[in-house]
């Protein structure tokens, strides 16, 4: 472990990626995540076999990542919302070709060019398989500096383990904020399992092909079911959520990333006033931790989804609950970051209106 240091979120992802064995990064400038690209430029130049490329476009960057992943490297690209839209082509191919890669989306206000303020408007794109075709990919939603470090390492592990693209879904605030962080020691890459599918020249073995074209519909269906079974395995193995003060809660706010931090502040403040509120924070957005939410509905009748959007994750909350509890929603889109007081006010009002009691 390194000594604790105060570090910007974007830099944390970069350092954690390097320590997780990332050896190839390609990216394109876009605010508010340029600090990550710049960090990787420096970091890769200090590693003997590290490669950094400032690509001519987001599209080129993700396709370079495809190539590097084919060659067996641990790879990463990053961008912010408009740029991630461009990357969707490549992400679909990564999914189809079962190539491991890490993609970071530091979300900003949208749609269109939008603005550069923190937002959570890309939830659907991230969790539904944002490109064409029938696929999903893992989406991790860190909510603190330390978690950025930890989940970045996890992202690379999942990418290799499941041969899938993994997205780290943050926002402008997660990228810019500084918090104390410690890092694990750099990974010994020689200890990683071999990739018996990678392309490095057919010396002493039959030639290999990594493709996504399957003109034979039976083969394409087979690939789709194979991917589906993989996604089912992932959905069994990795859903994760943090719960905070939910044991005796009568109303639980569900929020991820930056919104969860703000909500936590609101929950703390309301607890001091005697309201039995709690927080459930999905750490994996896909797979969504629906079992935790479903289980919680045995004792909680009211959930409030809070997002920095007009309501996207709330659909997953409803799907998880299947009508077992009331689902409220509060959102602030467009790059607005509400204060804990604002969320506390909303929670308080809904709490009273739902007949859960007032101030003690």
């Amino acid at each position, binding site marked *: 472990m390194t000594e604790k240091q105060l570090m910007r979120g974007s830099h944390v992802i970069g350092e954690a990626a390097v320590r997780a064995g990332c*050896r*190839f990064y*390609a990216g394109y400038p876009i605010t508010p995540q340029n600090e990550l690209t710049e960090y990787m430029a420096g970091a890769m130049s200090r590693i003997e076999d590290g*490669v950094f*490329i400032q*690509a*001519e*476009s987001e*599209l*080129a*960057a993700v*396709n*370079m*990542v*495809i*190539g*590097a*992943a*084919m*060659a*067996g*490297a641990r*790879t990463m690209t990053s961008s912010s919302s408009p740029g991630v839209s461009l990357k969707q*082509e*490549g992400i679909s*191919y990564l999914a189809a*070709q079962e190539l491991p890669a890490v993609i970071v989306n530091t979300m900003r206000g949208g749609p269109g060019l939008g603005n550069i303020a923190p937002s959570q408007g890309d939830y659907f794109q991230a969790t539904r398989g944002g490109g064409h075709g029938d696929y999903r990919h893992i989406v991790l939603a860190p909510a603190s500096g330390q978690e950025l470090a930890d989940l970045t390492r996890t992202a690379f592990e999942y990418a290799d383990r499941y041969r899938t693209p993994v997205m780290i879904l943050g926002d402008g605030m997660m990228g810019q904020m500084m918090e104390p962080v410690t890092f694990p020691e750099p990974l010994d890459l020689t200890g990683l399992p071999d990739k018996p599918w990678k*392309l*490095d*020249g*057919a*010396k*002493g073995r039959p*030639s*290999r*092909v*990594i*493709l*996504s*074209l399957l003109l034979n519909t039976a083969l394409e269906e087979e690939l789709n079911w194979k991917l589906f079974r993989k996604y089912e395995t992932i959905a069994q193995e990795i859903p994760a959520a943090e719960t905070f003060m939910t044991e005796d809660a009568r109303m639980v706010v569900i929020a991820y990333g930056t919104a969860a931090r703000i909500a936590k502040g609101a929950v703390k403040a309301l607890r001091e006033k005697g309201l039995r509120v709690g927080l459930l924070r999905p750490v994996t957005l896909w797979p969504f931790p629906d079992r935790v939410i479903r289980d919680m509905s045995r004792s909680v009748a009211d959930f409030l989804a809070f997002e920095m959007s007009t309501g996207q994750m709330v659909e997953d909350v409803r799907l998880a609950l299947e009508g077992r509890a009331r689902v409220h929603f509060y959102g602030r889109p467009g790059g607005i970051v509400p204060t804990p007081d604002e969320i506390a006010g909303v929670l308080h009002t809904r709490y009273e209106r739902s007949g859960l009691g007032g101030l003690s």
Partner: protein
Amino acid sequence: MAKKIFERPRYLKENVYHYCPGCGHSIIHRLVAEVLDELAIGERTIGVPPAGCAVLAYNYLDVDMGEAPHGRGAAVATGIKRMLPDRIVFTYQGDGDIAAIGTAETIHAANRGENVTVIFVNNGVYGMTGGQMAPTTLLGQSSTTTPGGRDRSRDGMPIDLSQMLAVTGGSVYIERTAVHSPKHVRRTKKALAKAFKTQMQGLGFSLVEVVSQCPTNWKMTPADACRWIEETILSFYPLKVIKDEVGDI
């Protein structure tokens, strides 16, 4: 005992080509396979096939192959080559793939001087999708999307991508050849060998543009297609060494 004077190249799989009769792709595939064998680099070569008629190139070329999205061959090749600089990496792309949807990736890979080899097959038409206008379709040439012929004011001029790439700082060897006659086939093979040698010596971006026949979509017999290349296409796309900073290697 009979002497064997002709055989299947080592790096060509025993599959029957899906290409139409008279198509240039099968000739060019064979030339690539022969060159990889003669340069003894087949076991350390990774190819990147395109989207287009040659999308199934991996069914024929017996080397590691990684499929790129339409037009992104140069970017995918960049990723592979940068991670494995001692391997030989080539893309195989048609005119629509490289000179329309993939223009940006190609120009920037050339400009960075990526040490890869690009085989650019120019037959002036989108073959796989059924004969639409390509960026390289000649003025007046009919296609399914230029039924009365390509019109300058509506469709623009045919593009000369090789010339464009020649002015980038990172390209070192660019030649345009053809495969419509034995003489031109031999010349193409020499050019391919030089392009791969350029890469083996780490000299930078190399590209061979092969003007190729597409009798099916041109709606011609194979013989007429070859004649049309000689008499018409080559006047707009003359065969020549477009850039050579490599010399004799």
